[in-house]
């Protein structure tokens, strides 16, 4: 589908991703250190590093998309995957989920894409 001329694109600021990756890298270094020089003293620290690093990588992978809106509808563009387009008439509900930090668009068939 051709992109409409009046389309507005929203993406994540690079600062958001630049914050997540260094933390994951530091956690990875701590984990590797424990792998190559095993020590019972550092086991708890390595476990925490796995947990925190995993969470950061998970967040990072979830932030790899862009959203474009136009008068026709909304286009969800995940990184390395085919975009999903919803016409405005297909959206049945707008739900703000402040605790989860996102807004959820529910389409007419009552399933989320």
């Amino acid at each position, binding site marked *: 589908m051709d992109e409409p001329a009046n389309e507005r694109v929203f993406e994540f600021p690079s600062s958001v991703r630049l914050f997540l990756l260094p933390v994951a890298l530091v956690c990875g270094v701590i984990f590797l250190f424990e792998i190559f020089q095993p020590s019972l003293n550092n086991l708890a620290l390595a476990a925490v590093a796995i947990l925190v690093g995993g969470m950061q990588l998970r967040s990072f992978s979830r932030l790899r998309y862009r959203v474009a809106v136009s*008068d026709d509808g*909304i286009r969800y563009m995940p990184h390395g995957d085919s975009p999903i387009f919803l016409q405005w008439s297909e959206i049945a509900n707008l739900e703000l989920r402040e605790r989860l930090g996102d807004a959820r668009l529910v389409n007419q068939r009552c399933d989320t894409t």
Partner: protein
Amino acid sequence: MNLDYRLDRFQDLLSFVADHATNCDPHPSLPSSFHIGYLEQTVVVIVFFVSIGGSIFFVRTGQSINAPATAFGLFALIPVAMLAALPHSMTVSTDSIIINYLGWRREIAVASVTGVRFGIERGSRGSVWTVVWLDRLEGRPIKLRGLSEGSTALYYCLRDAWQTAKDSGLVQAMQNIR
């Protein structure tokens, strides 16, 4: 489809989606009422009584210059100011928006509204919440948040009232007068 609050200019995206996804608009019957959530009021009242309690406790120690009692007394003024600034209830009708505060009320003609839009506020510890901004012909925009009915319901209600005023020509007439 989930849209993360960390997207750049998320408030613009939210306003755009809300304006265009017309099926989401419940078209509430006007007048419609909104109320502040009990949690916010309870927290403010607890802070007030704890401050007053602290002040009374230090006054009873009997010192002539009692800095802690004065500090607690002054601190108790903060929740009082917060209670006065928080809108307790709000009624939206086709011609006016009435916001009730503690001991006073503000009435805004719907025809004097120039825009309704979403805003995002971020707390210092990563918390995030949605607010609704009401732009006016004169005066600063009014920020509305903490109403138990939710920001989406408030946004659509205000927008429907404003749209009705625009359709009837009241908004244009008001702008011509100014």
